[in-house]
C-alpha cells in the first residue's frame, strides 16, 4: 500500500446531530456540470494580511491561498489520502524515509515546470522553517534523485498516517523555487500576487474588497476548473454577508459566514442550503485552560472542579444556538481515527465541583468564596466573551470568585501566550486528525514556547505524558499507535489542564445553485477545482 492509509466516513456524526434539517443538506452535482461563469465566495472572517502567508497566518490567508497553491497530497471525505502534486508516496522498511513520486506535467501559473527542485525548496525553506516547523522536529533532509522523485528523511521512524497528514497539511504547499529562492519568504512580494500550480490563477487584489482569480487553462486536471472566475469577497459584518447572499451578490460562504439565526432564515427561503460538512479535518473547539503556574491548580481535583462547575450544554444552546456540543477530551469526536469517549467525564455537576474543592483543601470562607481567579476570555471571537460570563457564573456558584476580562486579539495573545497573565483562559483550538503535534503540544514540555500562540500556555507537563507522546511519534503500527493515543486522551482528560468546553459546528451556507461544494474534509482550505454553478 502506498498512499491509501485509512478509510473513514467523515461528517456522518455531524449530520446525525439533526441540527441542520434535511432541507439544508448540501446540493451535489446533478447532471452535466455547467461550464463558465463567476462564483463569488466569502468566509466568516476578515481580509488576510497577505494572500499567502508562508507560516499559515490563520484561516483567512489559508482560505485565499488554497485556491491558488496545492499540496503534495489531499485527504478525501472518505478518509483516503490521495495524491495531488504527488502521484504516490511510500515508506522505507525502517519508516525513516519516504519516497515521493511527483505528478508529471504540472506547470506553475507562469508556465514553468514544477519539479523536485521546487519540492525540495518548499520542504527545506518553507515547511521546515515556517509552515510545519513543529511537525518536522525529526526531519533530517530531502533529496531529489531525479526531477520527479524526492526522498524525505527523518532521524526516527515516522508513522505513515503522520507523513500522509504532513503532505496534506493545510498550508504545506509547493511553492515555486524560482520565485522564492534568495528572498525572505515572509516579505516576498509574490505573497500578494502568488504564482502557484492550482486551478485558479491570481488576477487582482482590490484591498478592502476582494480577490479575483481566473481559471488556470493549463491546470493538470484536464477539464477543470469548470468555472471561469472565482471571486473571494470580504464583508466584515455578518449581517452584511447575509444581505449580500440574499441579494444574490455572494453565492457561497464558508466557516460561519452569517449569524446563527440568519442561517435558519436563509435556509427557510428555499434558496440556500446550510451544511456542517467540510470541517471534519479541522474541528474547532472552545478550550478552557488553567494556568499551572498558580499553586491553587497544583491539585488535580481543583482543575477537575473547574470543568464540573461549567454548564456546557447551556453554552451550546444559548451562545451557539445549538451549533456546538460539549467536548470530552483533547481529541475531538469527529476524529474516527483516534477519538475515544472512554475518558474521565467532566460533566456539569456543581455538587461534585464543590466536593472536589472541599477535598482539595479549599472550603468556602466567610465571604462565601474559596479563592479568586482571573478569567481571561480571548476576544478574537465574540462568543468567547459570552462564554466567559456563563463560566464566571458557574464558578461563582461553587464559591470561586472570578475577575473576568475580555481583551482584544493582540492583548489576548500577549497575555495568554507571552505573559501567561491569567489563571484560567477561554481560548480556541483547531485540530486535524493527526494528533502529533497539533493536539499533543498542549500537554508536553516541548510545547511550552513562550510567545508562540496556540501552544502549551497552561504549563502542564509530566514525564509520563512527554514519554508517551515520544512513543506516539515513532510508533508505525497503526493499532498500537491508536492505543497509545487513547491512553494519552485518558491521562490528559483526567489531569484537566486544558480541555475543550465545546466542539464547534462550523457551517457553510450556499445558494442552491452551487454544486460540488463541501466535498472536502477541510473545505475552507480546499482548491474548489470542481465547483460549479447551476443555471
Amino acid at each position: 500500500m502506498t498512499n491509501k492509509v485509512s478509510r473513514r466516513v467523515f461528517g456522518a456524526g455531524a449530520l446525525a446531530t439533526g441540527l441542520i434539517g434535511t432541507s439544508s443538506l448540501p446540493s451535489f452535482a446533478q447532471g452535466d456540470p455547467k461550464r463558465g461563469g463567476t462564483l463569488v465566495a466569502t468566509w466568516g472572517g476578515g481580509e488576510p494580511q497577505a494572500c499567502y502567508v508562508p507560516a499559515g497566518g490563520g484561516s483567512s490567508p489559508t482560505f485565499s491561498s488554497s485556491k491558488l497553491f496545492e499540496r503534495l497530497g489531499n485527504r478525501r471525505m472518505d478518509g483516503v489520502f490521495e495524491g495531488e502534486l504527488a502521484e504516490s508516496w511510500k515508506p522505507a522498511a525502517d519508516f525513516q524515509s519516504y519516497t515521493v513520486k511527483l505528478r508529471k506535467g504540472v506547470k506553475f501559473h507562469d508556465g514553468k515546470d514544477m519539479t523536485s527542485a521546487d519540492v525540495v525548496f518548499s520542504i527545506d525553506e518553507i515547511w521546515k522553517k515556517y509552515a510545519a516547523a513543529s511537525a518536522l522536529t525529526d526531519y533530517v533532509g530531502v533529496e531529489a534523485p531525479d526531477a520527479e522523485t524526492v526522498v524525505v528523511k527523518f532521524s526516527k521512524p515516522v508513522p505513515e498516517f503522520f507523513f500522509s497528514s504532513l503532505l496534506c497539511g493545510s498550508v504545506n504547499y509547493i511553492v515555486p523555487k524560482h520565485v522564492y529562492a534568495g528572498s525572505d519568504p515572509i516579505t516576498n512580494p509574490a505573497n500578494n500576487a502568488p504564482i502557484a500550480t492550482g486551478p485558479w490563477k491570481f488576477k487582482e487584489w482590490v484591498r478592502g474588497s476582494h480577490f479575483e482569480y481566473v481559471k488556470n487553462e493549463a491546470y493538470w486536471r484536464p477539464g477543470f476548473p469548470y468555472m471561469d472566475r472565482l471571486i473571494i469577497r470580504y464583508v466584515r459584518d455578518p449581517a452584511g454577508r447575509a444581505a449580500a447572499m440574499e441579494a444574490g451578490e455572494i453565492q457561497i460562504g464558508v466557516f460561519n459566514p452569517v449569524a446563527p439565526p440568519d442561517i435558519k432564515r436563509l435556509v427557510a427561503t428555499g434558496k440556500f442550503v446550510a451544511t456542517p460538512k467540510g470541517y471534519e479535518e479541522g474541528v474547532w473547539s472552545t478550550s478552557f485552560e488553567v494556568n499551572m503556574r498558580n499553586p491553587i491548580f497544583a491539585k488535580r481535583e481543583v482543575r477537575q472542579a473547574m470543568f464540573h462547575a461549567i454548564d456546557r450544554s447551556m453554552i451550546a444552546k444559548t451562545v451557539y444556538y445549538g451549533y456546538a456540543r460539549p467536548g470530552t477530551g483533547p481529541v475531538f469526536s469527529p476524529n474516527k481515527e483516534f477519538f475515544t469517549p472512554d475518558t474521565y467525564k467532566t460533566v456539569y455537576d456543581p455538587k461534585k465541583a464543590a466536593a472536589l474543592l472541599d477535598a482539595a483543601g479549599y472550603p468556602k470562607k466567610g465571604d462565601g468564596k474559596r479563592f479568586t481567579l482571573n478569567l481571561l476570555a480571548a476576544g478574537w471571537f465574540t462568543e468567547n466573551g459570552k462564554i466567559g460570563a456563563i463560566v464566571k457564573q458557574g464558578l461563582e456558584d461553587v464559591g470561586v470568585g472570578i475577575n473576568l476580562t475580555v481583551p482584544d486579539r493582540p492583548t489576548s495573545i500577549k497575555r495568554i501566550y507571552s505573559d501567561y497573565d491569567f489563571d484560567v483562559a477561554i481560548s480556541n483550538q483547531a485540530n486535524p486528525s493527526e494528533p502529533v503535534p497539533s493536539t499533543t503540544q498542549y500537554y508536553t514540555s516541548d510545547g511550552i514556547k513562550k510567545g508562540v500562540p496556540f501552544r502549551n500556555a497552561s504549563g502542564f507537563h509530566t514525564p509520563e505524558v512527554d514519554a508517551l507522546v515520544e512513543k506516539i511519534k515513532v510508533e508505525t503500527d497503526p493499532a498500537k499507535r491508536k492505543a497509545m493515543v487513547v491512553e494519552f486522551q485518558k491521562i490528559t482528560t483526567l489531569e484537566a489542564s486544558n480541555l475543550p468546553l465545546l466542539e464547534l459546528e462550523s457551517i457553510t451556507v450556499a445558494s442552491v445553485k452551487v454544486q460540488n461544494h463541501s466535498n472536502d474534509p477541510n473545505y475552507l482550505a480546499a482548491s474548489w477545482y470542481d465547483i460549479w454553478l447551476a443555471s
Partner: protein
Amino acid sequence: MTGAGSSRRMAALKLLRRRLIQAVPLMLGVVVINFVLIHLAPGSFLELMTAENQVSDPATIALLRKTYGLEDPTWLQLLKYIWALLHFDFGFSYRQNMPVIDAILLNLPATILLMVSSIALALAVGVAAGVVASMKVRTFWDTIVSVAAMFFFAAPSFWLGIMMIVLFAVKLGWLPVGGMATIGGTGGSIAGGAGGILDILHHLILPTLALGLFYAAIYTRVMRSSMLEVAQLDFVRTARAKGLSRNQVTVHHVLRNALLPVVTILGVQMGTVLAGSVVIESVFSWPGVGSLLFDSVSSRNYPVVLGIMVLGSLVVITANIAVDLVYMWLDPRIEIR
C-alpha cells in the same frame, strides 16, 4: 480692485499665516499624544506578527525588533518618527508590506469620496430643510422636517445602514449591498469611463445616505433656528421695509447670515465625519481609510494607525482654517483673531 477688497485680502492672508503657524505646535501635540497613547496599549504589532507567523526563535524576534526600530527607548522612537514625518515618511506597514503612505493613499480616494458626498448631502438637505422649516414655521411641513431630523439624529448610522441595505438592496434590489464597484464588472473606476463612474455612484448612494443623513439632521435644526433668529434682526426688517420680496430677503439677507453657525459646525465635524466613516465603511464594505484603520487597530499596526491619525488631524486643521476664511467671505464684518 477697491481698497476695501485689497484690505480684506490682506486680512485673509494674515489670518492664513497666523493659523498655519499655530498649526505647527498643534500637529506636534497631535503626533506626540497619539504616539504615546498607541504605545500605552497592551500588545504590539511585533507580537502579533510573530504570533501569526509562528516565529519563536529569539534571534529572529531580536532581528525584527531591530528592523522595526523597537529596541530603541520610546522617546527615541518618537523623535525618529517626528524626524521621518518631516520628510513625509510615515513608516512601513509590515501587514500590507508597503510604505504606510502608500497603504493610506490606496484607501484615501474612497474615503474622500464618501466624506465629500456625505457632507454635500448633509449640507444640501440640511440647509434646504432648515430653510423650509423656518419659512413654514409651526406648520405641517415644519413638523415633518422636525420629526425627520429627530429620527435621523437619533438613529445609529450602522443601524440605518443595515436597514437601508435590507430595504433597497435585499427587498427592492435597486442598489448594491456594499463595495465600491461591481466586482468583476467592466466599470467601477474612473478609467472605466462614464459606465465606471456611474457604477461607483450607484454603490455610493447607500453609504452616503447612511453617513450624511445624521449630519443633515443636525444642520436642519441649526439652520432652522438660525434662520428664525436672523429673520428678527433689524437689517432684515429694513430690507422688507425697502419693499424687497420675501424670497429676495430670505435668500440674499437671511440665508447668507444664517449659514454662519452651519459653517462653524461643518469645520468642527470634519473629524467626526471621518470617524463615522469607520463604521459606515465596515457596514458597506467600503474600501476606505476607515476600513484600514479598523484593521490596523485590530492588528496593532501602529505605523498605519499613527499615519491615519496624523493625516486625519491635518484634514481637521485644514478644514478649520478653511472655515475661518469662509467666515470672512460670508460676513465681511467678522475679523478673526
